[in-house]
């Protein structure tokens, strides 16, 4: 597997009325100026202004809460569309450092957070078993074979 699959059905979006229930309901849009799912649909699908959008760091403000698609009167999969543009942007190197770090940590340790000495001590004090060690080599290889090559290599 490689490349970015189409994660939404483009034709569904031709039914978008630009009513803005998506943006009106969006928690991120309330607090981040410039994050606007309605406008992203307009630009990306209806106007074809894709490259500009894929360079924007604003698209990463989506919390994937999916209230947009739940409330969309046409039931359009807006969340799938946002995941799609984030996948494409990441392929072009536009992704936040925070997420990149998390993904590299998964490839390295199998987990998205690093246990500290404090974690180990508290677990012991509470009588919990030591953390299981996932098979990190297998996890890394699976991620690579599924297509996540470049992102893990570049340092």
């Amino acid at each position: 597997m490689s490349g970015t699959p189409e994660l939404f059905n483009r034709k569904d979006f031709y039914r978008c009325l630009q009513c803005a229930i998506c943006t009106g309901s969006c928690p991120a849009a309330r607090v981040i100026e410039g994050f606007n799912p309605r406008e992203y649909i307009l630009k990306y699908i209806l106007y074809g202004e894709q490259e500009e959008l894929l360079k924007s760091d604003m698209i990463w403000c989506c919390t994937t809460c999916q209230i947009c698609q739940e409330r969309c009167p046409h039931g359009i999969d807006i969340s799938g569309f946002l995941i799609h543009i984030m996948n494409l942007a990441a392929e072009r190197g536009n992704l936040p450092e925070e997420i990149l770090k998390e993904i590299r940590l998964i490839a390295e340790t199998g987990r998205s957070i690093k246990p500290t000495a404090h974690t180990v001590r508290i677990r012991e004090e509470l009588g919990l078993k030591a953390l299981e060690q996932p098979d990190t080599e297998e996890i890394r290889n699976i991620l690579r074979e599924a297509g996540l090559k470049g992102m893990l290599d570049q340092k």
Partner: protein
Amino acid sequence: MKISLFTGCVIPIRYPGMEVSIRELAGKLGIELVDMKFSCCPSPTGLKEVHFDSWLTLAARNLSLAEDQGLDIVTTCSGCANTLRETACILKNNTGKLLSVRKVLSRYEMDLKGTGKIFNLPELLARDEYLDLMEEKLINPLINMRIGTHYGCHYLRPASVMLDREQDTYFPLPETMELVLESLGAEVMEYSRQELCCGAALSINTGRSEEALQITAEKLGWMNEAEINALAVTCPACFTQFDTGQALLKRKNRNMRTIPVFHIAELAAYALGSDPGRLNLNTHKIKPHFL
């Protein structure tokens, strides 16, 4: 019942007391939890946004580990539940994706047939047998608690995948936590905008913590309006956002009313007689003084 436990990354590392709660609770209810060498789920707010197929394949590996032992999975985090259930759903309905995933897994002598089920902890607890058992074994009823619930977006949406029903804009919430809390003796409260996001992903993914806290503060406002005095969550990311979030907000506004936050497993374990010290409840930023 024997089931494999999927704690996710946050609970065992950041909130080991929650893990104690989950294990003690399972023990009291006769649920045998099996630990497996799962990886990160991976997160619907992380790898999924960056590389969909890698997200799907790593999630499928986790499903395969449990399926190989003939076990269903119980999750204690809304994000993990979302990733695992959506993955199972995609692979059931999309043969192309299933073939690609199986091809990768087969190189590591793994397979996936899709026979295993994934439950979120409150779903299991809300079964009649466990509700009855909890009422029977109740030692510390949650009296004096006017408690609100926050399921976390990924517990709820999309409804077709997460709640096994058509979405309903007017009744978007399941009642699993409400049923559990009532059987533990709490008074369950409703509040406005209950189904909305806590804001955590905005802060985790982009570092915009101030803006994320604005989302949290708005939800807290609705909770305060309903005069709830405790909040139950099912997700450790939501827990951090509300617990640490209130501590941060209080620095700016010393007179702010605060609401102690609990993972549902903590409340259930406590109510069934676990010692609050063993559950590490004193490490919460907003102190649960009334327990």
